[in-house]
């Protein structure tokens, strides 16, 4: 089994683990971690495909590489936005639960709708 295959299987496992964590973990921050794990697994899978497309003196197809770089930056931006939403939810509601029937304990720092 070549090294590329080993990395490919690792990436597949990372996708599976990330998906499991995303579904079963109740805390939003943990869901976010799991989602990032899933994403990085997908990027790695793309990298494996690019590695197999090595040609013309390059060890890895440059087009998937460029797309993955773009993807990593976008994933970071999305994570930062999600974290900002989460912190705002915490400040407004006093907890970070995603359950719709959870009790809301407003801290009074911001008026509702403010």
């Amino acid at each position, binding site marked *: 089994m070549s090294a*590329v295959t080993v990395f490919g299987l690792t*990436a597949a496992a990372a996708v599976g683990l990330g998906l499991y964590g995303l579904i*079963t973990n109740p805390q939003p921050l943990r869901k976010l971690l799991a989602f990032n794990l899933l994403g990085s697994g997908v990027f790695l899978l793309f990298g494996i495909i690019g590695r197999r497309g090595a040609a013309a003196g390059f*060890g890895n197809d440059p087009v998937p590489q*460029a797309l993955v770089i773009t993807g990593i930056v*976008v994933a970071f931006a999305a994570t930062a936005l999600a974290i900002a939403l989460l912190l705002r939810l915490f400040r407004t509601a006093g907890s970070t639960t995603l359950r719709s029937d959870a009790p809301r304990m407003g801290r009074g720092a911001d008026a509702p709708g403010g």
Partner: protein
Amino acid sequence: MSITTVFESVLAALVLGLALWTIAVRETYSATVGFVAYGLMVALIWVGLDAIDVALTEAAIGGGLGGIVLLGAAARLRDTESTAAETPNRMVRLGAAALSAAIAAALAIAILLLPDAAPTLAPAAVANAAATGLANPVTNVLMAFRGMDTALEKVVLLLAIVGVWSLASDQAWGGRPGPHHEADPNGVLAFLARLLPPVGIVIGVYILWTGADHPGGAFQGGAVLASMWLLVIMAGLADTPPASSRRLRLVLVAGPGLFFLVGLGGLCFGAAFLAYPIAHAKPLILGIETAMLLTIAATLALLLAGAPERSVPR
């Protein structure tokens, strides 16, 4: 089994273990630390896949800056863990496990059964490299062959900043992002924040410059510059600029603005949108990259700083 294969197998096992840790460990803070370590190890995998550009980006942005965002949130939300203990029931967990295992297995089978003649665009990238005068194929793809993706990605970054800023409360609207950092002005952090940024700025610009011909580029250099700025902010030597600052907003739109301006120029005087005149391709690309470097550095740092929290006295 050669020694390289052993090394790569150990690396893969380590990454897998860290991924498991991130999902399974009880404490959120430990999980986040595990994720940062995972990101750095994945960067090593990218080196193993001969994708140095991606490795640099993953280490700087995926593991580094992303890790700081997540760690900061985990530290702030540390006390909320006990209130959010509503684990799903067993059926949901079993179902999720079955679904995840099935998807992982399908992906693994797909990896094992990939056709042997893999499709590749590398020869096309080489054949057209002369058109831009840059030797790094990844920079060529990012800035020229698929420049549209990169330009629109800048817009995504801009939208993310707009989204984060619009989460500010009424009192802090247009104010300074993030908490105010106070550190001992004679302490070791302030010392580092005075010593390191000159070196870091040189390294950031070097990474951009060398990105034309070697691994590197605006993203990686921008991440280094962003971390230098954040270091100075965290040491209390400077404050984040208010979100309403006109100069800051100008920096934030400089990268995509110049990109689209050059693109429109291609539409007016050349063949198509984003078509560079071949004689001026390299200076144009370097100009766009320089503007992008500033934009990326500012955007990444402000995304990390978060929503405006302190109002500016008017």
